[in-house]
């Protein structure tokens, strides 16, 4: 792109147009910019534009955003998101790097922040190795500039490029970078921090300037944090006194003129104080010895801070970071600072309790934004709230002063409850606080819920405080306390007597408060999921008495305002449906769920609600249709309209679910499949459906259901051709090839050979082409499994002949190069068994392998089979070596969500074989009688010693198991043992075999041979 004035003007116009309200010119401009960005020099042109002061600020701002995105997507050599955008050329990159710092520092704040972000992105890739000039340039400007914004701009940039030191592991590379940054930046940072300190001291009244200066100090502190994060650098240790002196100054700084008017806006001073608390906390955690000289001063500072900090949300961050510091101290060796009883009491009464008490903001949240309230209150995303931090402080103090702390809090709790009892309406917040403390100070537990608390007697607390709350006549009175009670019950659910639990809970499902009915649903759901040992605590039958009320209330809850898509309620429905014996309620549930489905598929918004909804449907199908296949028709009637909407209106979010449900329905049917399904089949092969990766697993599953349940359809029609088309497409890509094999495997398992015989050459063609083109471990394993399945289902002869038809003797090549070397990597019980059985068949039945000259191959195949059978999976299989294929993951796709209620067990394709080892032994014995003298030497030559020993053990185990032979069997000559073994086998298992002369058999080496290891003399 030329940098002509004209180009710049055009670009400026375009950016102006992108802000236009009218969509037409806007789209045109966007398109033009998109095309321009393909050309080399675009980035430089934008930078030029940004430096044109004559250009309107808004236009430059939008250009700056565009530039940042341009950098984001085109700076990396290979885009992490797999886009195919061309990278910026190296020469242009160098130009950009040369320009950007100067430009960034001299533009207005809004443009500056975009450029600073762009700079941070570039530095992620290039700094420091490929951008040696950056840091010197920043430092030089930092030292020379007197412009407030320039200095803040530099620091903000430095802050973003140093952040990586906070979340990467130590490594030589990281430390080299860190050292480089420290050498260049540590000293200037301290200089600027001190200099700014002096400026602040001499600037009394200019609040605008002061704010900028405080922001600068905050940035310095954040950089301090990054540079000190990995470990204490020498420079900072040498200058600790200077830093700490400044920190102390700011922690005790007050200036009312800098406070903010708005209640939830943090003042610059508080922001700085919070950043300082983070820093001293870091030192306290990691460098406590070097820091200890400053500790008592800071403890005092922070203490003082917490005494004055208000409960306003604007002080939240400061309060939590300050409490965090005290918590760290309380757990450290310096905990004695708090040892004094009066100090402990002060901490508890003046810091903990006020911060745990419910604030107006919490109440407001409870009413106005139940989702967020629940997230914080129940789901652990309260890590940085005052309540949570205050509880952490209690836990910290308890590390060394458990008794005192527990004693104090027990007393506080009793006192708060007493006050509540005196005047519930006025003092209910005290009870809230009490329950909160009991729940939060119990160790956080999962599964069965918490088991106890030091603070109160749980059982007694439950009876005296919780049950009355839940028995109150009005489910809507004091909803916060109801929510607390429900949370208590959820937390200590394993202690709650089974008899009362459901009874208490069910009526709260229809409480008006969203938090309350969500908690009730969640509590019921968790109670039902609970186990005593391996037994579910509640059996299906135990639900019977409550079932009607439970279901009525659950569905009623979904009609309450703002709870139409309440995921807690839906999850509870899912749980009830999959556990209870629904009987007459089945149709009610189905009708309700179908109605909801019909509603939500118009506009799917809440993914987890929708997921549980489909799970619930799948559970219904599983339970009802499994028992009574007549029901299927009812289900179809109710569900098909939804299926239709989803398919016709292309509701992408739901398609994978619908395919799974359809598959489930097909599986529940008795053949023949009704025509409606058959009619639905051709559209399922529409390529657009298969292009969405989230659809593929579900569609494959559905296709398999068709193949298994309506094989006759494929026997006649040309459908099979299309199915194989899908297979071909899937198998061509390394991310979906296994899915292709799922289909292929089902074809050869479910259809008769003559149905697909004509396609076999084509199938091999596809597979071998792919094999030549791209050999991944996953593909090879899938291929071996497929060939094994082919061999056991249709015979080794068809397998070898059809492969050889592609090219003479190809099967040997495949065996040599693919099958034998990779057989040992097969994993999974069913897969291992299948492959072992198939290989056994080849070894013992295939004339080609038994032929003269195939001996070495035979030996190696046996060796692989033995490894497969004898060695544990984790020893055989190395870690996945395939490199993930980035090209194929394009952009954002919805992920496939498996419905586990719609899942089915896999079946064993070689059910007739009980034990693959035994099968191998028996088959080998059998074939050895046909080829006397052939295998002994082969085995000795080809098998690893461990595998020889393994083979021996299999024989021994089988023989004793099968025939219960006498113990001295083992002590007699080995030859005799083998002959006996074979003889017996022949008699018992293979009665039709010829009689064998034992002298002909030299099957295995005698036990005194060195190659056979570990031949224990165990006897029974």
């Amino acid at each position: 792109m030329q940098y002509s004035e004209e180009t710049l003007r055009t670009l400026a116009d375009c950016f102006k147009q992108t802000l236009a309200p009218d969509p037409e010119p806007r789209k045109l401009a966007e398109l033009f910019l998109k095309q321009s960005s393909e050309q080399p020099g675009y980035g430089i042109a934008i930078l030029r534009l940004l430096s044109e002061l004559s250009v309107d600020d808004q236009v430059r701002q939008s250009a700056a955003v565009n530039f940042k995105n341009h950098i984001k997507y085109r700076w990396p050599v290979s885009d992490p998101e797999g886009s195919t955008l061309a990278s910026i050329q190296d020469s242009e990159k160098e130009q950009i790097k040369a320009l950007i710092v100067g430009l960034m520092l001299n533009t207005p704040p809004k443009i500056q922040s975009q450029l600073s972000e762009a700079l941070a992105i570039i530095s992620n890739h290039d700094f420091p190795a490929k951008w040696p000039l950056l840091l010197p340039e920043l430092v030089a400007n930092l030292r020379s500039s007197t412009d407030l914004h320039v200095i803040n701009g530099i620091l903000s940039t430095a802050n973003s490029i140093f952040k990586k030191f906070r979340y990467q592991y130590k490594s030589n590379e990281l430390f080299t970078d860190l050292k480089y940054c420290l050498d260049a930046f540590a000293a200037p940072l301290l200089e600027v921090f001190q200099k700014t300190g002096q400026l602040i001291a001499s600037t009394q009244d200019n609040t605008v300037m002061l704010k900028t200066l405080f922001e600068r100090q905050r940035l310095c502190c954040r950089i301090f944090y990054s540079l000190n994060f990995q470990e204490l650098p020498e420079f900072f240790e040498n200058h600790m006194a200077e830093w700490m002196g400044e920190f102390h100054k700011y922690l005790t700084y007050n200036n009312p003129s800098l406070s903010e008017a708005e209640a939830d806006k943090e003042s610059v001073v508080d922001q700085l104080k919070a950043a300082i608390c983070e820093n001293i906390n870091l030192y306290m955690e990691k460098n406590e010895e070097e820091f200890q000289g400053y500790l008592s001063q800071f403890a005092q500072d922070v203490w003082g801070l917490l005494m004055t900090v208000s409960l306003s949300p604007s002080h939240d961050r400061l309060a939590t970071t300050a409490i965090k510091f005290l918590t760290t101290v309380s757990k450290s060796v310096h905990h004695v600072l708090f040892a004094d009883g009066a100090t402990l009491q002060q901490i508890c009464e003046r810091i903990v309790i006020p911060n745990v008490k419910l604030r107006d903001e919490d109440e407001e949240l409870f009413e106005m934004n139940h989702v967020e309230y629940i997230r914080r209150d129940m789901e652990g995303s309260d890590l940085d709230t005052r309540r949570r931090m205050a509880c952490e402080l209690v836990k910290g103090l308890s590390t060394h002063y458990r008794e005192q702390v527990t004693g104090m809090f027990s007393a506080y709790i009793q006192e708060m409850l007493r006050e509540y009892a005196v005047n519930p309406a006025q003092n209910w917040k005290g009870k809230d606080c009490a329950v909160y403390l009991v729940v939060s100070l119990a160790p956080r537990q999962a599964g069965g819920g918490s088991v106890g608390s030091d603070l109160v007697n749980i059982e007694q607390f439950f009876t005296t405080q919780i049950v009355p709350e839940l028995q109150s006549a009005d489910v809507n009175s004091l909803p916060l306390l109801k929510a607390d009670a429900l949370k208590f019950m959820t937390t200590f659910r394993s202690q709650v007597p089974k008899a009362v639990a459901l009874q208490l809970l069910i009526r709260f499902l229809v409480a008006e408060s969203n938090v309350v009915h969500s908690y009730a649903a969640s509590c019921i759901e968790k109670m039902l999921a609970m186990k005593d040992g391996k037994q579910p605590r509640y059996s299906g039958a135990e639900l019977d008495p409550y079932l009607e009320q439970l279901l009525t209330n659950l569905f009623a809850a979904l009609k309450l305002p703002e709870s139409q898509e309440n995921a807690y309620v839906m999850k509870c429905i899912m749980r009830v449906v999959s556990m209870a014996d629904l009987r007459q309620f089945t149709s009610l549930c189905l009708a309700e769920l179908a109605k909801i489905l019909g509603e939500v598929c118009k506009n799917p918004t809440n993914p987890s609600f929708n997921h549980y909804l489909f799970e619930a449907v799948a559970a219904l199908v599983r339970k009802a249709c499994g028992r009574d296949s007549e029901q299927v028709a009812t289900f179809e009637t109710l569900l098909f309209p939804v299926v239709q909407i989803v398919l016709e209106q292309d509701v992408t979010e739901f398609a994978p679910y619908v395919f799974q449900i359809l598959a489930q329905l097909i599986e529940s049917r008795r053949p023949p499949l009704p025509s409606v399904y058959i009619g639905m089949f051709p559209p399922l092969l529409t390529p657009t459906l298969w292009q969405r990766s989230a659809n593929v697993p579900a569609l494959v599953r559905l296709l398999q259901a068709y193949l298994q349940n309506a094989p006759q359809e494929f026997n006649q029609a040309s459908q099979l051709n299309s199915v194989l088309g899908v297979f071909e497409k899937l198998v061509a890509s390394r991310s979906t090839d296994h899915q292709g094999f799922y289909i292929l495997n089902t074809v050869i398992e479910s259809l008769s050979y003559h149905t697909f015989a004509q396609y076999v050459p084509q199938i091999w063609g596809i597979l071998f082409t792919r094999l030549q083109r791209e050999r991944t471990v996953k593909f090879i394993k899938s291929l071996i499994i497929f060939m094994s399945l082919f061999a056991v289902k249709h015979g080794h002869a068809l397998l070898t002949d059809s492969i050889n038809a592609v090219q003479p003797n190809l099967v040997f090549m495949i065996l040599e190069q693919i099958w034998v070397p990779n057989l040992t990597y097969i994993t999974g019980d069913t897969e291992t068994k299948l492959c072992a059985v198939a290989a056994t068949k080849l070894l013992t039945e295939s004339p080609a392998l038994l032929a003269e000259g195939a001996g070495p191959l035979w030996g190696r195949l046996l060796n692989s089979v033995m490894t497969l059978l004898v060695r544990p999976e984790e020893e055989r299989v190395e870690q996945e070596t395939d490199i993930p294929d980035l090209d194929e993951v394009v952009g954002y796709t919805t992920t496939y969500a498996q419905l586990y209620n719609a899942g089915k067990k896999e079946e064993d394709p070689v059910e007739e074989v009980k034990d693959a080892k035994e099968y191998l032994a028996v088959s080998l014995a059998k074939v050895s009688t046909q080829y006397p003298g052939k295998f002994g030497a082969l085995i000795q030559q080809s098998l690893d010693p461990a595998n020889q020993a393994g083979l021996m053990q299999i024989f021994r185990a089988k023989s004793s198991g099968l025939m219960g032979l006498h113990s001295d069997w083992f002590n007699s000559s080995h030859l005799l043992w083998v002959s006996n073994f074979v003889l017996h086998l022949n008699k018992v298992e293979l009665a039709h075999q010829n009689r064998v002369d034992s002298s002909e058999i030299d099957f295995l080496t005698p036990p005194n041979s060195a190659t056979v290891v570990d031949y224990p003399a165990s006897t029974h």
Partner: protein
Amino acid sequence: MEGNFGAPPQHRNHLKSPVGNQAGHRRRQQAVQIGKERREAVVRAKRLRRGDAVPNGDQSEAPDSHMDEEATARAAEASSRALEENTLKAVKALREYVGPGIILGKDMALKKIEALRNVRSLLSCNAMPPLNVAVEAGVVPLLVQCLAFGSPEEQILEAAWCLTNIASGEQDLTKAVLPALPYLISHLGDKSAATVAEQCAWAIGNVAGEGEEMRDILLAQGAMRPLARLMSSPYPSLARTASWAMSNLIKGPSPRAASDLMKIEGMADTLVGLMMKGDEELMVELAWVMVYLTSMADAHSGILLSVGLLPILINKLGTSDQTALLTPFLRCIGNIVAGDNSKTDAVLNAGGDISGGIIGALTRCLDMGHRTMQKEAAWAVSNIAAGSMLHKRMVFQGGAIPSLLHLLATAAFDVRKEAAYALGNVCVAPKAKAKEVDPIVEHLTVLVDRGCIPGFTALVKSPDMEAARLGLQFLELVMRGLPGGQGPKVVEKEDGIAAMETLQFHENDELRLMANTLIDKYFGEDYGLEEEYGSEVVDMIRGSDESSEYPPWRRGVVNG
């Protein structure tokens, strides 16, 4: 990480998630140093040679108690200004006698030395000598000329002394000394008096202490061999200084210098022989040489062991109370046991002679209440505990466990981390080829019974990522390995879930993933699914996670 300097702890990987062998990687990783080098005061990387009696008065003396702060500051400023002025004058005076074309008579030669001595005494006054001022005034070229061959001994000594102190300053000052190096090195030779050689070695030691770049220059100019020879000097002070300078010269990160030293014939014997002489001060300096040798290559350790290093190390470890000596000795042992198992065997065998064995000696250091000792000792124990099953058993039964547990509960952060590594390693079986490490149930059970879990959950909550990872790995081990499925319950009781939750949103991908996976696996939604749906269905549901190496080929297959 100064405590682990140069260690190749592939051993540490036992507790790591399977990310491949990082042995060599970690060795170099620790070569880059961020923190202060925590050597004892006597063994500082750079040392100033102080003057005897300083004419300018002593500012570091406590100020007159009647003076107020401001007056003190004023006085200090005035005196430092005076000092600067004097220095400028002194350099100027020296210039009178040094320079091209100046030929001096005998009297003048004496005055020259006088002038030089004056500069030296200003540059070695106690507090903050005005090194900068002197260098800016151009003193270095003058000093270089004073080093010229054939100069009087006293003149060379005084000049080298000045250069020593200049080199002890910040980087710029050290670099200013560069032009003098060839002379300094040549004065290390046989013909120099011991005092001269020592002063030159001292200056060189300071230069080497600056960093790798300076070390490379010194090596290229041939400082290694003369310095090595001086280590065996009969003059104790000279031997000490040379050994100290040598330790600076070979300390890496590049292992080349250390290898060069070992290539000098008979060096291993010489070093060990010197150590045996028993002069404790010399021993301290030599021990640091040993630290760098053993950290640079396993092969060096092997040679040093073969000539009898171990008995000396272990004997002192079992008896000495000198932290200056114990620090490098502990680090040596730590380096040696970080090598292959045969070295650890040798250490354990050699320790058989003293009561309590080597583990006892290390435990003694763990109990000394001295942070550096504790950290070094715990590090050594952690590397022994990362060895064979026998090694683990010896650590476990050798009495170190109570001390380690105590440290884990109470010590400073970096010590706690080392103790945690040691305890963790005691509990995992030597890594076979399998992907996961197996717990040693007996050890694990005892440690858990003795209440080690809070120590590990504290690490999980710490801001240090390695510590957090270590804590997580240990919790994982407990949950997986404690018999009777007790693990998750114990972790739960000790508030382990809350600790893991603190990592659920961590910016580090691995930590976040590990924490979430563990919570899901042991306490999550899937908890109990197995009973409900059967293991195959559960596998199917979970099958989508990245860790599953290959999707089960029949997933989704139906059997009606």
